[in-house]
């Protein structure tokens, strides 16, 4: 596309790195977040020169991060062959975000759609319409997922 001048990739990294990283930590825990962070930005670099619309780069990066997080959750589910009664989440890093480890554990235990929707809404501060774009669903469905997610969190988080 002639005339399209994309900003240097470094600018995207500087501006959106922390948002993407924080989203992935909240979504996956610190260990998987690091791998996923790389997958996200490597995919983004691959696609970047052909990007047609640079009006919402943050949303574009979060869309990629969202998909990578789903892949990571699926991979983790495949790995987790039930082995007798292993104490739940032994060794998993749970104090990944400030303040409320129980809350973040509860967030991570939400069903994937609700977890993602809640994180996009509150952690990433996206409007419902943008959550829909990032998650590939309608604005209404995004609103519903956030609502359902909050309802579940209220049950387990005493706050």
């Amino acid at each position, binding site marked *: 596309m002639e005339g399209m001048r994309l900003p*240097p990739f470094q600018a995207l990294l500087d501006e959106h790195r922390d948002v993407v990283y924080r989203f992935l930590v909240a979504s996956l825990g610190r260990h998987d977040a690091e791998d996923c962070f790389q997958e996200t930005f490597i995919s983004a670099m691959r696609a970047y020169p052909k990007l047609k619309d640079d009006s919402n780069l943050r949303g574009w990066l979060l869309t990629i991060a969202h998909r990578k997080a789903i892949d990571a959750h699926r991979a983790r589910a495949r790995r987790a062959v039930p082995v007798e009664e292993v104490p739940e989440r032994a060794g998993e890093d749970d104090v990944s975000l*400030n303040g409320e480890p129980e809350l973040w554990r509860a967030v991570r235990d939400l069903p994937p759609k609700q977890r993602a929707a809640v994180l996009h809404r509150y952690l990433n501060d996206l409007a419902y319409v943008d959550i829909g774009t990032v998650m590939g669903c309608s604005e209404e469905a995004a609103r519903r997922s956030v609502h359902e997610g*909050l309802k579940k969190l209220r049950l387990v988080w005493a706050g």
Partner: protein
Amino acid sequence: MTRLEQALKGSALPAGDAGAEVATGRLLARAEAEGLLDVAFTTIESPFGELLAAATPRGLVRLAYDMTPKETIIEELAATVSPRVLEAPGRLEPLKRQLDEYFDGRRRAFELKLDWRLTRGFTQRILRETAKLGFGQVSTYGEMAKAAGSPRAVRAAGNALGSNPIPIVVPCHRIVRSGGQLGGYAGLLDSDIKRRLLELEGALGPSGQAKLF
């Protein structure tokens, strides 16, 4: 907003969390390994202020004085070479070492691959001829025009040298006016940098003019 919503919003990574930074370091290594790092740049301290250096997988493509803002140069590289531009000092480590040695008087020639893609035609021919000049070896705009095959294009030779995207390493400072007056440098009419570079190379006579053969 409920307390729950506030708790979700108020979360941040612990202050001083280096997770994203560590992850970025590994990202750079992987981008390089997978051939995605089209332009790597870094800044290098020099006696003439901070230099911005950029290299493609083919070689050094740009070296810039701080007269031009760093952001402008990075944006130009994104527009003219590739938008996949990242700060990645690793690729420029040999340049940094050789520049340090050169400024220290311990190095007379650069051993680096160059990427000429920011120049074309006559400009590139002039600059390639310039790159053949050795340490302290001074020539004139007229000689360079002749060497590039257009003996009458003396002024054009001056313009070509003024637009050199890789100064110091492509030693346009070694080209002076036919009488030995220094002439312009880096797009400026009069430059202290040119004088000091020639001085470093022992190519400046007592009168402040360049020593021509």
